[in-house]
């Protein structure tokens, strides 16, 4: 990732100006966004402070844990106080950090008072999870802090999945998140005036999607208990895979439109067929297709963080896949071998079609 200093920024502005794309003086250097690792530091510190704050509440005001109503009122009050601080005093780093800690602590208090977990296992209380999910959606939209937005959208997606723990709709829910992720990233530049809100929300949903599809923790907590009702879950799982495949074809369609490639045409047809074959070859290993989708979306938008997230999720999913017990290692190796061959063939096919298409265009 090439990072720009002031001289280079001025040069870039002058280039754009000479092409008639911009006008006026070089913009000032205020409000440079902090890189992702600085925001990660702030977010993690906020959570550490929140834990100490919860300890403080437990030590001095234990009634908030013993009485669910008190816990809910105090939790909501803390979240509201954080909202007021972030709306009115966000220029101060100390206040922003304090507000984050209060909000996170308030949310934990709310979760414990709604009695949503048995240790780390989510309880299947649909109404309470729906309430928490709606609160998180509201926080993601209204709280003017990118770190908080990432967290709230992540949490909202998880609330949606925990709403129906005993049903197979978990797979449909995952595809809903997948569609939201694809749709927001594909339209990132059409909705650029909302980028301050939508970018963090998109990141949060992307992290939730990758968490749900790539981690053994989520699999053990949520998916594995469902596998007892095999027939119904199998149906829902297949429906989820089909919907996921449809979403990926939709992404490919949109990206072809963006590149002004005629549909149908030789190039477009080849790309669609190759995509379909890859989807079919990876039906039992959807973590790979989802990781692929994230990598492609990241590349399409010039977003190296998103591409990196996709690569990490692919590598992580492969290691988790090794330990999943729903099929044997022999079957897994066969699935991976088929997928590997399909991918290499697709690469060869793309090379032939795209290179010959380029030759035809150059000749014209």
């Amino acid at each position, binding site marked *: 990732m090439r990072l720009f*200093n002031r001289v280079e920024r001025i040069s870039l502005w002058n280039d754009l100006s000479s092409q008639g794309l911009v006008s006026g003086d070089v*913009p000032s250097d205020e409000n440079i966004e902090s890189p992702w690792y600085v925001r990660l530091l702030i977010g993690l510190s906020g959570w550490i402070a929140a834990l100490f704050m919860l300890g403080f509440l437990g030590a001095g005001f234990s009634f908030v844990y013993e009485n669910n109503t008190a816990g809910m009122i105090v939790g909501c009050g803390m979240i509201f106080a954080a909202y007021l601080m972030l709306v009115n005093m966000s220029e101060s780093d100390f206040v922003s950090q304090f507000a984050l800690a209060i909000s996170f602590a308030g949310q934990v208090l709310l979760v414990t008072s709604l009695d949503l977990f048995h240790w780390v296992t989510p309880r299947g209380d649909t109404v309470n999870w729906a309430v928490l999910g709606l609160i998180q959606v509201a926080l993601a939209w209204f709280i003017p802090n990118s770190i908080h937005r990432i967290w709230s959208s992540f949490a909202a997606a998880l609330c949606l999945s925990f709403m129906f723990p005993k049903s197979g709709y978990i797979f449909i829910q995952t595809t809903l998140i997948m569609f939201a992720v694809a749709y927001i990233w594909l339209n990132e530049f059409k909705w650029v005036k909302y980028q301050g809100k939508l970018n963090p929300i998109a990141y949060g949903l992307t992290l939730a999607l990758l968490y749900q599809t790539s981690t053994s923790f989520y699999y053990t907590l949520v998916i594995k208990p469902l596998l007892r009702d095999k027939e119904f879950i199998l149906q829902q799982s297949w429906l989820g895979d089909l919907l996921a495949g449809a979403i990926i074809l939709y992404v490919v369609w949109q990206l072809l439109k963006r590149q002004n490639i005629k549909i149908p045409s030789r190039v477009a047809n080849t790309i669609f067929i190759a995509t379909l074959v890859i989807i079919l070859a990876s039906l039992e290993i959807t973590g*790979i297709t989802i990781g692929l989708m994230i*990598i492609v979306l990241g590349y399409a938008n*010039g977003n190296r963080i998103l591409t990196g997230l996709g690569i990490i999720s692919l590598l992580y999913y*492969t290691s988790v896949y090794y330990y999943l017990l729903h099929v044997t290692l022999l079957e897994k*190796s066969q699935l*991976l071998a088929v997928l590997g061959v399909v991918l290499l063939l697709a690469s060869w096919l*793309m090379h032939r079609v795209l290179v010959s298409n380029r030759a035809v265009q150059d000749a014209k």
Partner: protein
Amino acid sequence: MESKRSLILRWIGQGNIPKEKAEEVLSKVGVLPDGSGWRIFIESLLLWLGGLALSFAMMFFIAYNWDEMGRFAKFALVEVAIVFCVIAYWKLDVDKVTAKVSLTAATILLGVLLALYGQTYQTGADPWQLFFNWALLMLPWAIVAQFASIWLIWVLLLNLSISLYFQARGGLFGLIFSSTEHLFWVLFIFNSLAWIAWEFAATRFSWLKERWPVWLIATASGVSISFLMLAAIFDHYPSDGIAVFTYFVWAITLYLIYRQIIPDLFILAGLCFSAIVVITSFFGYHLFKGNNDPIGSFFFLTIIVIALAAAAAKWLKFVQKEMAA
């Protein structure tokens, strides 16, 4: 400093670029890929994923230990695959993606071969020896490949073998009683040496110029020394004094180098986070040790963390602006 994409999006957000021209500007400056960019990307992506999928398929297959296939057939399968990959690398242009994929696949398959050998002949070797021998045997390929990711695999393998060595043997050369403390000292020394070597090599070889491999190794070094500091605070090992001294020397060195010589905000941010954790742990330990005022202790720790994080955020923003100037 900021990337071109962040820069353009900031200008759009500030109203300096009309919103309706967002995609056009991003395309013109090369943030959004063009047709040839997409072609190269799709081919490379499918090649990489295909090569890695086949390598992992082989790994899973060997791990299954399928009785229906004889041991010589299994050896032949893996060895033919390795030879095929090496020949492919030899024949192809080393700068091409296919060559890099071939050599990476050969590197992974080498580990599979060693695992198969151990599985077949039940040599009684410890798991750490598998990873150590793997790293040793792949070293000539790493030198020849001129590819950062293969060197990263090499560093990872050695980290794994060090961790497994201490798990199996307990202590250095089995002479010293095992402790996690010794493990983290060795990991810290190894990763710090790898880090230094990488930074020096990056000044000579352009294929090592990407920062993300350095960040990974730096994180390994930072986690190790931070753990040793936490151990010094909480557990009181014999080497506590050395740990504290080393931590301060490490922190000051990082500050001087990555603030003045090789500006790198990621490493400075990592240093800040390590400092926050260590300082908070120090206060936490001393506040709760024999203290009857948990309310005050928790409150103080909350404020400490918030204040440190806010100060770190402010300082990092200042440094970022300075680097961007």
